[in-house]
């Protein structure tokens, strides 16, 4: 063959053993990303994650919009966890402008963030279930998720993209009967997720597929800088809500679950255990929350920050989510960097998949709690 190829492209020699496979970006099992893997028989010998399929240039867009008009588009990278991605942004802007958030707004923020964490985890769990061939585990979380989505709709008016957090508080107060409804739904929700143990987490098929596959040791988890459930499944007790408490997390009663095994089973169990803690936090916050009061401080139109920089982080559904805001005295940020947990956990993917069997790929890949759209930003 001597056909001229466009520059940059080359024909690959067909080796008799190694075969290159493109998993994604439109394969349902990959999410919106491509993983280029090389297989030798049944074993993966090389992994090259290739994100960027849904890159939208959020960081560039943020430089053109002022601090308030940045809110709706900044939650787009992860719409199922939109409160948590706006959280570090709002904390950063509050620090920049020197705003003091009203007490009631702090509690409502925590409630919204925890509800959103559960919504995200349920969505992720549904996908994890279906890719392990467990269709009940797709239906149950998708259905139970509606309970919390209804609550969030009552709070914010929108089902998924809430844009609820604003610098200086929250956009609006909750309806009058919200506390009772929230408590009832969360209690029922907790009862429901307990049943997942019977059908999923104690299921011998799940255990045989995920135990001891993709083991990430404690040292590697630290060295690779992983975060969130991946890190806590490897025995490192690091949760931003505990280590660097923001808003009222230091006054609430909860624990951050940690497991030692570091395999896919532990990684898939941590988010489930997180949901119980979220229910605890919500109940505690409802009890301690001031029953009335303002929920937002008044802002000047187009507020300006000083000549400074800020880095704030929160614990999202997937791990530590940081925002680095560089301000140069203008209404727009000079530079906004979003350090997302999915992007930080991306480095663990080649580390874990190389050497695994091809059939274990969904079990390992989705246990990383990876959200491709968020990694692409």
């Amino acid at each position: 063959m001597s056909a001229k190829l466009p520059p940059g492209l080359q024909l690959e020699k067909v080796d008799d053993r190694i075969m290159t496979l493109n998993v994604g970006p439109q394969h349902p099992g990959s999410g919106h990303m491509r993983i280029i893997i090389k297989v030798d028989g049944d074993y993966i010998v090389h992994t090259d994650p290739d994100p960027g399929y849904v890159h939208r240039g959020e960081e560039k867009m943020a430089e053109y919009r002022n601090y308030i008009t940045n809110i709706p588009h900044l939650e787009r990278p992860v719409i199922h966890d939109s409160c948590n991605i706006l959280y570090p942004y709002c904390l950063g802007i509050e620090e920049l402008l020197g705003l003091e958030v009203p007490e009631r707004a702090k509690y409502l923020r925590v409630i919204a963030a925890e509800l959103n964490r559960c919504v995200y985890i349920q969505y992720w769990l549904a996908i994890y279930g279906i890719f392990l061939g467990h269709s009940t585990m797709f239906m149950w979380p998708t259905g139970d998720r509606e309970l919390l989505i209804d609550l969030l709709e009552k709070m914010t008016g929108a089902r998924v993209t809430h844009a609820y957090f604003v610098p200086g508080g929250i956009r609006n107060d909750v309806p009058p009967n919200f506390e009772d409804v929230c408590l009832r739904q969360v209690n029922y929700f907790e009862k429901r997720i307990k049943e997942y143990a019977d059908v999923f987490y104690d299921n011998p098929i799940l255990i045989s597929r995920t135990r001891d596959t993709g083991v990430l040791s404690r040292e590697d988890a630290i060295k690779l800088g992983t975060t969130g459930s991946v890190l806590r499944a490897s025995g490192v007790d690091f949760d931003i809500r505990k280590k660097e408490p923001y808003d009222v997390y230091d006054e609430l009663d909860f624990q951050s679950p940690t497991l030692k095994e570091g395999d896919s089973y532990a990684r898939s169990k941590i988010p489930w255990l997180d949901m119980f803690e979220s229910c605890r936090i919500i109940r505690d916050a409802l009890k301690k929350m001031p029953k009335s009061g303002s929920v937002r401080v008044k802002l000047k139109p187009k507020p300006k920050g000083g000549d400074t920089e800020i880095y704030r982080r929160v614990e999202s559904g997937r791990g530590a989510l940081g925002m680095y805001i560089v301000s140069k005295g203008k209404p727009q940020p000079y530079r906004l960097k979003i350090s997302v947990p999915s992007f930080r956990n991306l480095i663990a993917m080649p580390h874990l998949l190389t050497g695994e069997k091809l059939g274990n790929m969904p079990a390992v890949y989705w246990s990383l709690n990876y959200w491709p759209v968020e990694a692409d930003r």
Partner: protein
Amino acid sequence: MYVTARENKKNEGKVVLKMSSDENNTNVEKTEEAPPVPEFENPLANLILKKFPSATIAFANPDRTRVNVSKEEIIQTASFIRDELHFDHAESVSGVDYPDEKQIEVVYHLGSYDDPSLSKQIMILATRVPREDNPHPGNDTTKLSSLYEIFPSVAFHERECFEMLGVYFEGNPDNRRLLLPEDWADIPPLRKDFDIKGR
């Protein structure tokens, strides 16, 4: 000066940083005895200034310390931060473009998982590289030594910084495109002279 409401509140609660080993404590005392360097409330800043006098501390809050170093010194400083100050991973690597100063700033946010006394701390390590008006990413003077050998967690972050700002990281095993399309033929998009149409 960098003082906000949140920080004032923090100071009331008195956040005092304790270094884990005795060796470091003696270092702090020594700098207190002979004060040629300005004293910071944050002992980490003092330790770095003592070891690298040419570095500048942009600010030292109770839980954020920013160190500016020259690009020649970044490897030594990063090794010192890892080995002596026990920071073990990078949280993010950001590039900030300063076209008026003809420089690009690369900012590493480093954190620690292993040392519980440092879990609130973020060490911000920043350096500047020259910037060219007509960039040829990888083939011009916009180059920096990679911290991959010291913090392997920077691998993908540096790759992103290379394609978004055109800073080539010497020593990073992988400097290919990451998020942008493979046929991208424009200047690195996060530079300030790359404009969005219609804005």
